[in-house]
């Protein structure tokens, strides 16, 4: 693989990582900590929303993020022909 392709592959990877980490930050530090008080005003069934994000929701979102990354990277590896 040429140096130019490598650069593009790496750039796309970094874009994925950046977007996913923004979601990661918003789900945990955002919804679970910084805005927890405000979100607690919203009810989801028996949960206050901020509390739910802090003790349940953030963990589910973490899981989804990893598997989305795995899916995106498997596709990207094939696209640039660097898969094993």
């Amino acid at each position: 693989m040429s140096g130019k392709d490598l650069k593009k592959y790496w750039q796309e990877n970094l874009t994925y990582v950046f977007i996913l980490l923004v979601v990661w930050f918003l789900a945990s530090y955002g919804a679970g900590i910084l805005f927890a008080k405000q979100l607690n005003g919203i009810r989801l069934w028996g949960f206050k929303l901020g509390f739910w994000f802090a003790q349940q929701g953030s963990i589910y979102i973490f899981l989804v993020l990893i598997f989305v990354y795995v899916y995106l990277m498997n596709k990207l590896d094939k696209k640039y022909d660097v898969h094993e």
Partner: protein
Amino acid sequence: MSVQIWTFIIVGISFAIYIGIAIWSRASSTKEFYVAGGGVHPIANGMATAADWMSAASFISMAGLISFMGYDGSVYLMGWTGGYVLLALLLAPYLRKFGKFTVPDFIGERYYSQTARIVAVVCALFVSFTYVAGQMRGVGIVFSRFLEVDITLGVIIGMCIVFIYAVLGGMKGITYTQVAQYVVLIFAYLVPAIFISFLMTGHIIPQIGLGGTAADGQYLLDKLDGLHKELGFAAYTEGSKGMADVFAITAALMLGTAGLPHVIVRFFTVPKVKHARSSAGWALLFIALLYTTAPAVAVFVRTNLIETVSNEPYSNMPDWFHKWEGAKLLKFEDKNNDGKIQYVAATAENELTVDRDIMVLANPEIARLPNWVIGLVAAGGLAAALSTAAGLLLVISSAISHDLLKNAIKPNISERGELLAARIAAAAAVIMAGYLGVNPPGFVAEVVAFAFGLAAASFFPAIILGIFDKRTNMLGAMAGMVIGIVLTAAYIIYFKFINKPMNKPEHWLFGISPEGIGTLGMLVNAVVTIVVSRITPAPPLRVQAMIENIRIPRGAGKAHAH
């Protein structure tokens, strides 16, 4: 059958399985000993990672800790899971491609320096030893509470079991035993949780029961908030820590998770780079099963406890109350001599002291579950402690035989010699860990909590920048690591050991407690690393080529064979 007999049978069967697996999966090469030959299926590796990661503290103490901290307990839930996102996206695939055995290997080669390698070895040994002592202690406690054997004897039994499969099997033996241990521990955690959720809310899934209604039609969380207010505690769903501190502690735990050597090394055991990514996902899935159940258990047991004891006559207390009083996990002191239990926030009037461990240990009895469930909880606690201990012992043994002996002292040692050295180091580490378990230095419990902050402030930036910033060089990384770890350690030592009375929010830097200071240490480390690297020469070309190489997945299998 009695609880005692059930416990012996279930613990006995689980131990027989672990030893059987150890004999079946003996390691015959250093590659098998350090990284299980690099051929572990990602799902199996995920389970092993989960068992490795979840210690006696996760299993026994976490739900209790959360039930006393309420919202503030979220720092542990998010902190000990969010790090896996960082591992999957930023670390695991690249370290797998790098294809060596240990974290000091990476630091040593990426920063082309024997000194950097040795600094990393020392950090890895320090973190692992403090951590492993706590695990052996956990083994002893489970033995003494459930089987009524002496703590010392319990630790020795635990040592013998770990000795057999860690020394014989190395990473290969440990990995497959951990898979079995994960199954035992998650089953033992979920069975009582499902029962108690059904009893209290009518939902069999605890995560849903947590948001459900109690028998009186009130939402359980609202009810608990109400009870807390009545008794003078902070509202359960709101907590009382400052926001900056919650933020910093969560970050320190996340970054620390991603920097812990015994977690990172697990991703060296799968065949391909894509498996390293997915393996982190599987690990988090298996961890999340327990970590999303724990806050539900915390609420169920907390509500149950308050309803059972608050303002009730002491003479009405059920059997489990007296049993755990005997084990000194509950203490009642009738201060106003009215024969009733006052359980309130104000220390002067509070008459009941509750140990946090009781929330999981007594859960089956509080919910009146059959005796075999209690035996199962004992086996689960032991599985959690033993699996974590084994993972840490492997890091210790590989740090000594591979990083120190093979790479620093005696490079021409033969494969057989190195394997023997690894086994001797593992054996010595087991004995030392056992000794620390029997005679725990007073500070172990304190230090374990800080291992994360120290790992975050030292390893994390060095590894991340090593992968993502080609310009980061030896001087930058060393300066960053040293400043990061010194600042963090100094802050912790000052507030926790030298000047304890000062350890209050108004004296903390930016309102960040010693538990969360690792986050600040990490930031300082990163800034120093980047600045110093920019004003000193770039790393050699061969190192830059290596970085290019670990960024693409292809060739990981080949890179590994030797």
